[in-house]
């Protein structure tokens, strides 16, 4: 794990997690490396228990790349969160990203996908 040497605390993730009602809204600002992804997965699962969240919405609209590790991590996260009682939706996948994922043969079988934040929230509410 990368540690900020001056404060000895973990470097904050380039992603924000907001709590909205019973949902967690996660927006990822820049591409995450493998370690950061794993950390995000862990943090989110913690938050699901702590906030008693019923849904997780992950917004990846800012990303122009989503590699197979990231896709798998998100997919696993969706399953783990479901085991703790929260449904996951990934929103904002750009057309180019979608095509790359398909070409790589990567699927997000366990996560629901939606066009954007609005659609995602609607699905979580349903």
């Amino acid at each position, binding site marked *: 794990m990368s540690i900020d040497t001056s404060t000895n605390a973990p470097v904050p993730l380039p992603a924000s997690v907001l709590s909205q009602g019973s949902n967690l809204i996660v927006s990822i600002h820049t591409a995450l490396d493998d370690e950061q992804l794993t950390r995000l997965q862990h943090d989110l699962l913690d938050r699901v228990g702590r906030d008693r969240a019923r849904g997780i919405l992950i917004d990846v609209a800012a990303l122009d790349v989503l590699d197979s590790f990231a896709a798998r991590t998100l997919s696993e996260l969706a399953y783990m969160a479901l085991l703790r009682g929260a449904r996951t939706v990934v929103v904002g996948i750009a057309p180019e990203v979608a095509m790359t994922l398909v070409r790589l043969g990567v699927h997000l079988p366990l996560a629901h*996908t939606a066009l954007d934040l609005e659609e*995602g929230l609607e699905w979580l509410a349903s």
Partner: protein
Amino acid sequence: MSDHTETEPVAETIHQDDEALLPELVAHLRAHRTDLRQQWAERITQAHLLSAMTAQEVFSEATSVYDNYVEVLETGSVEALQHYARDLSERIIPRGVETHEVVGIVLLLRDVLARSLFEKYRDDFDLLNRVLDAYEPAANRIANTVAVSFVEQRERVIRDQQDALLELSTPVLQVRERLLILPIIGVLDAARAQQLTEQLLHAIRAHRAKLVVIDITGVPNVDKSVANSLVDTVTASRLMGADAIITGLSSEIAQTLVTIGVDLSKMHTVGDLQGGIEEAERQLGFRVSKEPDEH
């Protein structure tokens, strides 16, 4: 063939520099122009080349090619020939002239001219060798130039046609709020599938579509690769949050797909476009009803 060779003093030519050989050769080819051209045209007909053109046309093109050929030998510059070859290709490609025919006639001319040189210099093997040394590279260059010009021209035509095809390729249309239809007509190859997917995904975002009806009634052959690209298209649109309904699978296609073992069970398929749109409307919560007839 008329024979002037014996009147020429061999002793005189033998001491000439090799650079002087080409002009001599050019002079020879100019002097026998009518005769050699005639021979060449006959050989073209015999070999059944350029069958798409009339004898008249073949002869007039043969004349131009011959003159260009001699000019290249004389000046060593292929520029004019290149220009002519491009022009010629432009004229004959639409008439269905094949690459092998064009290469064939140039090689025939090379052969006809070489034979006439053999005949002219047959008494002096050493000189013949040097003449051929001067002739061969130039002749090869000409053959090369013509063939390359022809192929380039053809490729340009093909590229233009491909671009035109892609442009009028496939419209993505909105029929209801958040419902798109994508009628695919014609052969679906990898490049087109890719382009089509890209178009569809952008349309999904632009129209905020929730459902897409992909109609493949107009796709003549659906094989494994077409089926797989359809699956990819559907998967990609699901990642964008839009579900897809495939319509227009004919009974033949359905049979083929099952026989070759393509699994489309994860796809949502409906018989025809109308059924697809009706199903989509139901899923989106639209209710279309016919007004009762008024009596």
